């Protein structure tokens, strides 16, 4: 069903960790039956785990399955082998973002812009975060999808345009320290680092 690809790198560090976690998978499909988003996925969660165990990184990255995980933890709760399935989907998102896979650009930007506002202010400023996201997407039509909700929120003064005046706690020091620690770790184990 899946072609082998010479670009598959079986020694990819990040995938190795997920692979080791998922080895006890018995392919029962409880995860698929439990997943509220399975119908919209091109590969069911069960098939995704099989690909991970086989180390088929190219096939994994071509699928949208892990990006459609909404962190509901139903599969994790029900897995008869007690495997960390939701966290594995999360880790696959991380690999896709680190590889800058173009098909996940929008999701990656959403997460990155979110974390940039956290880094700068310590807390999320929703309007600023969405503005940064729209700007980074460079798609002039995207804001219109959110416009009706945005106008409602503005009307309720739940979000404000521009930069708030409330105090902020920048978290650059913590972000930099974590990045340095991860870089050092990547240097010693050959793990793929996250941006």
């Amino acid at each position, binding site marked *: 069903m899946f072609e082998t690809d010479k670009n598959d790198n079986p020694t990819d560090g990040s995938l190795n960790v997920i692979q080791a976690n998922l080895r006890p998978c018995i392919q029962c499909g409880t995860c698929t039956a439990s997943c*509220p*988003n399975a119908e*919209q996925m091109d590969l069911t969660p069960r098939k995704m785990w099989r690909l991970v165990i086989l180390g088929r990184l190219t096939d994994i990255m071509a699928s949208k399955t892990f*990006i*459609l995980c*909404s*962190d*509901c*933890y*139903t599969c*994790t*709760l029900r897995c008869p082998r007690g495997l960390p399935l*939701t*966290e594995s989907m*999360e*880790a696959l*998102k*991380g690999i896709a*973002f680190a590889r800058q896979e173009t098909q996940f650009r*929008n*999701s990656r930007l*959403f*997460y*990155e812009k*979110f*974390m940039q506002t*956290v880094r700068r202010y*310590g*807390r*999320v*400023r*929703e309007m600023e975060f969405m503005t940064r996201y729209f700007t980074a997407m460079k798609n002039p039509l995207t804001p219109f*999808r*959110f416009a*009706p*909700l945005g106008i*409602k*929120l503005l009307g*309720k003064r*739940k*979000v404000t345009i521009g930069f708030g005046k409330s105090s902020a*706690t920048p*978290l650059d*020091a*913590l*972000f*930099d*320290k*974590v*990045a340095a*620690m*991860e870089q050092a770790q990547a240097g010693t184990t050959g793990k793929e680092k*996250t*941006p």
Partner: protein
Amino acid sequence: MKYLYYPGCSLTATAREYDLSTRAVMAAAGVSLTEIDDWTCCGASAAAPLSHLLSLSLSARNLALAEQAGSGSQILVPCSACYLNLKKANDALQNDAERRATINEALKAVDLSANGNVRVRHLLDVLSMDLGKKRLSPFITRSFKGLTVAPYYGCQCLRPYVEFDDPERPVSMEPLVEITGAEILSWEMGTRCCGASLVSTQPETGLERVCTILKAAKGADLIVTVCPMCQINLDGWQSKVSQMTGEDLSITVLYLPQFLGLAMGIDDKSLGLDLNLAILDGFKEKIIQ
């Protein structure tokens, strides 16, 4: 009863009414809340895929601040996503020595350290287990007899940490609704995912989730929620989903403390009812005076 309070980012913006009503109901019930000074974002669902250590460290920073209030303190968290992140970090600090050392190494950058000696509690946990029917009943001054409520629990206050309710067939909201005289809608969607951030990043899938829940809630007068993400997906997008399906799926959506606060006779301004995005006119006339 005393708790430390972690509102989280949403409760300062799109979910301000959740913050207002939580504080109002707790104050009326004689519970003291002390907001954690200088709290910061828990990392939401965005930090973990980018960096697992960053996600743990962001939450641990808040736990470290809470620990300064004394070992054994309890943190009340109304947002389910914040609750799960703080709980994961607390779990790592308590049960994984290697992780604890790594997290504390990171926290040195902000001159803090954490041991995991506080307890992280979801608002629903505190309302149902610590207060419960017995302690809340005396404060109920109005009857909502004739109203039908669809209790919507969502995901992350129930799973993966099973703390105060059945993670698939939860009932913790039922006694709290029943003390108001209202009836419970019997439905299967109380723990079905609202789509979370997929509504923004993958709208075709996300809005499908919202649609399924709103359709199942037909027959109820209102949906009651305990998470800002669930709330905005169900109230903020219901006109869009109605448009998509050509079916009127509009329904009143309130946060649980707003609903309880109304039954306790707390004025609507203190409960932030002017901030909700979906309160139907009929409901307003009948319930909000």
